[in-house]
């Protein structure tokens, strides 16, 4: 972790000048091999603490994103646009869920995911998915979540692309960090019956420091066969957050298993097949589609 400094006056923190601005940044330290950046500095500094208090860095196999560190001008520009613009859609995100996902075509590849959820209605959620919960988090995909009511209306070909959530929740893998279990119990009860469709568009898991290739369809952890999660992955997450998935599992015993999970979901379970997206050249649409 680099040194913290004020953006406005460029003073290192703690700031010796009476600088009234609270914009600060971390001067990047020379690149190291370690990808862990969430370690606490030995110099106590309240702003530094403020910065990392909510930043429990997830382990990710990709190194830091290449590119020059942010320039002062860009920081100021960003702050300016942020103040002037309303950013309404992103301000609707009301939940942070930490869970896991497996690549549909190669279920050995398993990742920890951080979902930031926006609810459209009682039956539909949309999530921006990141590889960690820090300010440096990489945006790795999008998940859509629908209730069983909606799922049953989808054509079977579409249902194959979705995964169930019951096991993930019941096993305590699906966690809302810092949220008391009792508070969101009713919601978890509903979500056990839901289905998700997750596309991962940045494969940090294979070490990509930039988003290469095309999105992959992801599946949810399951208690059998290819769906079994690597226990180390779970332990490392639990340790970072200071909870135990097994404890969550016990707390969730009373949540009923759904009576019916549509067999078209979790397609691999019955077929041992996954999906893999490939690029094909096509006739270019020369103009934007318009009715």
């Amino acid at each position, binding site marked *: 972790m680099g040194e913290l400094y004020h953006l406005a006056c460029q003073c290192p923190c703690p700031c010796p000048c009476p600088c009234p601005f609270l914009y600060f940044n971390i001067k990047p330290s020379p690149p190291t091999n370690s990808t862990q950046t969430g370690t606490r500095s030995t110099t106590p500094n309240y702003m530094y603490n403020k910065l990392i208090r*909510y*930043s429990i860095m997830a382990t990710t196999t990709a190194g830091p*994103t*290449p*590119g020059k560190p*942010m*320039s002062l*001008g*860009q920081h100021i*520009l*960003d702050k300016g646009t942020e103040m*002037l*613009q309303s*950013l*309404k*859609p992103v301000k609707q995100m009301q*939940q942070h869920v930490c869970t896991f996902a497996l690549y*549909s075509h*190669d*279920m*050995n590849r398993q990742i920890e995911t951080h979902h930031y959820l926006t609810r*459209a*209605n009682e039956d*539909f959620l*949309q999530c921006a998915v*990141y590889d*960690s*919960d820090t*300010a440096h*988090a*990489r*945006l790795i*995909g*999008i998940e*859509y979540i629908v*209730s069983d009511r*909606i799922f049953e209306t*989808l054509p079977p070909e579409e249902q194959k*692309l979705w995964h169930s959530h019951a096991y993930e929740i019941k096993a305590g893998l699906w966690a*809302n960090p*810092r949220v008391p279990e009792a*508070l969101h119990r009713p919601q978890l009860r509903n979500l056990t019956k839901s289905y998700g*469709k997750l*596309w991962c568009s940045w494969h940090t898991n294979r070490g990509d420091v*930039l988003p*290469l290739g095309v*999105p992959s*369809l992801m599946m949810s952890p399951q208690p059998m066969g*290819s769906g*079994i999660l690597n226990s180390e992955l779970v332990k490392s997450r639990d340790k970072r957050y200071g909870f135990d998935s097994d404890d969550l599992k016990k707390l969730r015993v009373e949540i009923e298993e759904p009576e019916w999970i549509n067999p078209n979901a979790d397609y691999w379970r019955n077929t*041992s*097949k996954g*999906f893999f*997206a*490939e*690029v*094909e050249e096509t006739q*270019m*649409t020369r103009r934007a589609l*318009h009715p």
Partner: protein
Amino acid sequence: MATTGTPEAAKIPGEPTKTGTSLVETATGAIQGFAPINKIHQHLCGEAHHYCAHQNEEMRQCLIYDSQDADARLIGIEYIVSENLFMTLPDSEKPLWHSHEYEVKSGLLFMPGVPGPVQRQDLEKVAKTYGKTFHFWQIDKGDALPLGVPQIMGAFTRDGQLYPEIAHGLEKKYGVSMEKEREKREYIKGPEHGIHPLANGKGKGLKLELREVDCKQPVESVARVFV
């Protein structure tokens, strides 16, 4: 920045959010941390609405919504890299990325609510960048739900590609004049080495096809078979 057609997709099916649900979510919203989201600082509008955060000076990651309202649908992702980073990509990767020079210079891209001179300061940089966009929800086809396979999106690269009625719609909605902006952005330069010939799908359209494959067994569970 790829844009989509305007047709209003059907409303998302489902019951209105129950009071209990929204109360719990107001609480989780207050208790939980949203560090990655708080990094989002910019609303860039072509026709789709991009909400962007910097990874560093040379890379941005954007969430794409279909509107700028609270009930906007999250339809895609765009990654934006500097020319420098683009040049480091393998040649097989380059066709998936599109140039931004035309969309900036034509006045098509803008930042709602931000004064022109401030906008142009950032757009000078954007004009030199390349982007890679995936849409996961084809609202332009009228899909009320996110169906099927992701689409890889191109960008407008020359005059005549955008329907004039879409352009007029945008101008009216945001009170901007693309023609005037175009003149003011005359001085802005694209990538230093020119638009790379492999970018923009090498001039061809691209689409994603989903192939069914045997899934590989996890090492752990394969081992278990032999225990």
